């Protein structure tokens, strides 16, 4: 398939891996920010191609994984109401809350529907004027424009039975929280290509400067990721800390301006809780006052609900790159994709789920090992 096959080419991948090995003289820890990149790295075994000195840390960029427990619980409470049609992207349905997941609420009779776009949820609202249609607006800057558009359209078309449960988070504040933590191990970043398609990469310039850390905007295919790693290692070896764009076929410096304008109209920046990490200032979106009528938390009276997270789950440390999934005592035993303790085990983009799916048997059976 065009625009995909050339980025999954064995010869190109091997040439890049050799180039990385050639320029690497010290040990470096590089974090890929986005869950889509984590999935690709583990699926294609990209880290197997890298020299021993390079460690990849898996970042916080999986929207399913960082959505806080209490928001999942709020979703469950709202979805269980008889008047509600609860619409969500597919992989949120299996994320465990305190008392089950959206699948189990659906099995007990709730009307929970998988949609591919928030605008589909808006259509459902238009078709069901007697029901309350709630869309679970999760995700990073990538999904925010479409979610903003749904709210904007609901307002413009006067669709009063539509609302959104907002759980939007932003990448740069999370990167700053990682860099500022005392146990930080990250020396360079592969920034999330699709987030930058929307936002551009200017907002990363001050981060690179302040923390003296190279940031390479990177795509999602194996060759993209290897190129991103190469550029990052090159900077680290040369002592540079700049923002570079590997994913130029999709990302422009200023991003998608109309999308940004719509997001700014509908959302305002607020502090957000991240599952396993805690609250990060200025790290998410809430609805602007003009659109407050579409806030599902207020509409269904769940805004004041709080809950503590499972203490055994180390998802927070995994999301900050401090620990690898296998270092968790519950990994693969008390915590599996069938019975996840935390969200990193749920989404295919979650680091724990990716390791479970592709690496679980590795130590005993696949003598894959890294090349030296």
């Amino acid at each position, binding site marked *: 398939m065009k625009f995909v096959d050339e980025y999954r080419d064995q010869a190109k991948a091997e040439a890049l891996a050799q180039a990385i090995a050639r320029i690497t003289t010290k040990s470096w820890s590089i974090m890929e920010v986005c869950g889509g990149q984590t999935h690709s790295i583990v699926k294609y075994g990209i880290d197997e191609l890298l020299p021993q000195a390079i460690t990849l840390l898996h970042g916080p960029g999986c929207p399913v994984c960082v959505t806080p427990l209490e928001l999942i619980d709020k979703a469950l409470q709202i979805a269980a109401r008889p008047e509600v049609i609860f619409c969500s992207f597919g992989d949120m349905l299996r994320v465990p809350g305190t008392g089950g997941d959206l699948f189990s609420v659906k099995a007990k009779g709730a009307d929970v529907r998988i949609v591919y776009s928030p605008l589909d949820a808006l259509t459902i609202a238009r078709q069901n004027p007697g029901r309350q249609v709630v869309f679970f607006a999760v995700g990073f800057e990538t999904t925010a424009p479409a979610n903003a558009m749904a709210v904007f359209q609901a307002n413009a078309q006067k669709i009063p039975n539509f609302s959104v449960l907002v759980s939007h988070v932003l990448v740069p504040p999370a990167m700053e929280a990682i860099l500022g933590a005392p146990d930080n191990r990250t020396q360079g970043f592969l920034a999330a290509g699709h987030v930058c398609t929307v936002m551009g990469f200017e907002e990363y310039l001050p981060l690179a400067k302040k923390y003296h850390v190279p940031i390479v905007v990177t795509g999602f295919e194996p060759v993209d990721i290897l190129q991103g790693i190469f550029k990052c290692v090159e900077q680290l070896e040369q002592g540079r800390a700049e923002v570079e764009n590997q994913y130029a076929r999709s990302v422009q410096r200023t991003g998608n301006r109309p999308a940004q304008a719509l997001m700014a109209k509908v959302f305002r920046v607020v502090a957000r809780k991240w599952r396993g990490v805690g609250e990060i200032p200025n790290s998410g979106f809430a609805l602007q006052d003009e659109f407050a009528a579409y806030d599902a938390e207020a509409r269904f009276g769940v805004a004041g609900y709080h809950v503590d997270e499972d203490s055994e789950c180390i998802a927070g440390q995994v999301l900050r790159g401090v620990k690898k999934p296998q270092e968790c005592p519950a990994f693969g035993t008390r915590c599996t994709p069938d019975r996840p303790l935390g969200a990193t085990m749920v989404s295919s983009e979650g680091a724990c789920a990716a390791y479970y799916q592709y690496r679980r048997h590795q130590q005993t059976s*696949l003598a894959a090992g890294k090349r030296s």
Partner: protein
Amino acid sequence: MAEKSDAPFTLSCPIPITNQDFVTLAHGGGGRMMHSLLDRIVIPAFGNQPLESRHDGAVMEVDKGRLAFTTDSYVVHPLFFPGGDIGTLAVTGTVNDLAMCGARPLCLSAGFILEEGLPVATLERVVASMARTARAAKVTIVTGDTKVVDRGKGDGLFVNTAGIGIVEHNLTIAPTSVRPGDAILLSGDVGRHGVAIMAVREGLQFQTTIETDCAPLADPVLALLAAGIDVHCLRDLTRGGLATTLIEIAESSRLHVGIGERDIAVEENVCGACEILGLDPLYLANEGRFVAFVPAAQADRALQIMRTHPVSAAATRIGTVSESPAALVTLQSRIGTKRILDMHSGEQLPRIC
């Protein structure tokens, strides 16, 4: 004083309407309505002696030997999709299960669970495609059953089929017969049925319509057996797709199944749909694809035989069985690295971004 009716006086009496164009509870009552449904729709379509005898069951002559017996229920939604419908599925699914036992499919039963209010035309269409598919698969539908459930207690139409086939060889075709060194042959491209269903169900539109691969598989299987290929295991790649099937075989044989991603064909439009939705084509359902495990020495001949049949014209060798790592499936990726294929915990879920 009674109101005077404007209706002209007639001598008709209030007998039940028997030619309704939708299914009512009376159609399942065992009385005249049900018989009328069978007479008008089912029996003419499936027409054969055991069915026409209207006995409680079918009695048939069979040659001495082993029988294969299987059953499956079909609840697909929507009932009609590009390239097929619940009727084609209900026949091919069961016929293919028999073929995977290495059996020559002989006859089927058909059980219908109809939801009150189902248009009779829908039933007619489904029955017609069952009849057509049965003819193509060289089986007869010799017995059946019809039930009607209250509106809201079904999804329009459910079908169950059971099938009997004759085993005309002495092989044990099963995961336990798989041996280290066996070649793994795949009958064609994968993922089409899964994407076709998802596209209709979710209203997704692609540049070209993706059609199901739904097709009977007995012909190439019987040809392999007739040619004396020592077939060790056969499996059709339905729910869970190629990956799940191979994992099941690796686990039950306690052997290692190694396959190459580059050898597995996925049509360009299926590939594109999977990229957009975040799905893995190796885990998508197929209804007209199978894998055959055969001794390596016979692999080329087996491929030649498979390729002479339209349904397996694009057959390829995708891998080899070895001793270890036991009970695992490994995939050599396009970039040359290896990874384990693991069973998903449920259905694949479309990703957020």
